[in-house]
């Protein structure tokens, strides 16, 4: 399968004013590395407020102006620039935003799904396509004329999903698609991702919901204090979690009520208090001396990746 998206060592920081004219640089993402192939669903799992949505914003080139982006984001092997992001977004790469709040409240659904058009001819063409896809997602003609506030939670989700698919994208980025939905709608939304996968679309699922991630993703990237600390395969999240590599991932798995509800003390270091060494140093029960001041790199184990000195060759 061809690799579609390759994110290498991406870091994002913000310039903030503290008091008066004093500025401070706040590092939110320190090292994010991942890759997605055609027809693959990769979930990025991180707690809410950890900054993982910024990855989506970085891919689409919609970070705020005071943000500082480093590292490489490659699409089909080519590094993305702001210009190429603007060229590709909404066409080959599309976003499924978190909620209907991302829709224009004063614009009819069909008009905003179609978006900007140059001519009447183009508009009619797109309109037909839009109706086709909406129909496929069980959205009748009456939905075209509605405004966002008239949609139920499930309908809104279907509108966002079908709008994202309108341009036959190769890559879909879904930012927190499950919270606030009832179980039936969550199930339905996750099925949409499975369908995309079958059609060869690559899906980047950004979520805090481990159940959703385990249900649809092929691989899961664990995001911790601004780092991707492990990329594991879905099958690793079984049994006692013995195939999971990072101690944090193991703890996360064992903390699920169905897997023992085990207590692990400590908290993720906040933005701005991230230690020099391994971000998990304070909580780790198998740390080495070097972990305190040396940052482990993400080690490539083929499909899996792990950021921990324990798995370095020769140790």
């Amino acid at each position, binding site marked *: 399968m061809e690799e579609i998206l390759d994110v290498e060592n991406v870091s994002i920081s913000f310039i903030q004013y503290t008091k008066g004219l004093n500025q401070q640089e706040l590092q939110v993402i320190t090292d994010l590395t991942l890759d997605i192939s055609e027809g693959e669903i990769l979930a990025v799992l991180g707690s809410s407020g950890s900054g993982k949505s910024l990855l989506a914003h970085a891919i689409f080139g919609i970070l705020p102006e005071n943000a500082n982006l480093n590292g490489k984001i490659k699409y089909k092997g080519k590094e993305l620039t702001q210009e190429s992001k603007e060229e590709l977004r909404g066409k080959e790469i599309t976003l499924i935003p978190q909620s209907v709040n991302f829709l224009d409240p004063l614009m009819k659904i069909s008009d905003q799904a179609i978006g900007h058009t140059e001519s009447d001819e183009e508009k009619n063409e797109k309109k037909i396509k839009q109706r086709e896809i909406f129909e496929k997602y069980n959205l009748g003609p009456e939905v075209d004329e509605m405004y966002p506030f008239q949609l139920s939670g499930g309908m809104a989700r279907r509108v966002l999903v079908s709008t994202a698919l309108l341009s036959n994208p190769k890559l879909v980025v879904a930012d927190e698609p499950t919270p606030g939905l009832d179980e039936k709608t969550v199930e339905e939304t996750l099925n949409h991702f499975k369908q995309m996968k079958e059609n060869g679309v690559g899906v980047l699922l950004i979520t805090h919901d481990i159940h959703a991630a385990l249900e649809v993703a092929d691989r899961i990237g664990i995001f911790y204090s601004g780092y991707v600390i492990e990329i594991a395969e879905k099958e690793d999240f079984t049994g006692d979690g013995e195939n999971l590599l990072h101690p944090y991932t193991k703890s996360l798995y064992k903390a699920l*009520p169905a897997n023992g509800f085990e207590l692990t003390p400590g908290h993720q270091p906040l933005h701005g208090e991230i230690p020099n060494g391994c971000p998990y140093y304070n909580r780790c029960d198998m740390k080495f001396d070097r972990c305190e001041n040396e940052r482990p790199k993400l080690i490539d184990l083929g499909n899996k990746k792990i950021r921990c000195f324990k798995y370095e060759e020769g140790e």
Partner: protein
Amino acid sequence: MELKATNISFKYPSANKYLLKDINLELDNNKIIGLIGDSGSGKSTLCKILSGYISKYEGTVTFNGNTLPKKGFKPVQLIYQHPEKVMNPKWRMDNVLKESWDVDDEFLKEFGIQKSWLTRFPQELSGGELQRFSVVRSMNPNTQFLIADEMTTMLDAITQVQILDSVLKIVKQRKMGFLLVSHDMDLVNTICDDKIYLNDINGA
């Protein structure tokens, strides 16, 4: 201790149909009960009635034989999903806590609250960190019954265990009552002594 709901019925003023109808419920501090229901089934509304946040309903709610106080501190405290919605965004966290009670260091430590968080504003903390504050705030010494309505739904699994573990410890220590409302069956089965399905007791 007894939190008792008798023939509770509720409908929104604009609705024709009752959301809750003739609900009878008796809760105490001997057993931890899990309340389960689909979204939109009226779980949260029932929680608000039981804790005194909704006053226009039919039926009666009594706590230890008395109706819930309309003024002053409420002995039945409710914690719900979104801590950011119950805090003044312009207050620093130490003031947010002080609004309820003077919390000692040991208590903060039990709930994993770092001293450095106290000078931050709510929007400078993550959901898990804020929810810890929300819980500590509701643990005023006068609180006798705690209702947790999807309290840990937005949190990662590790934070969920940490918060619930501390809550249950205090609940047992102070012999408080505790009602857990959740859609997560695994969670309910793990920590509750008994469970109630809202559909079974709702006549609507």
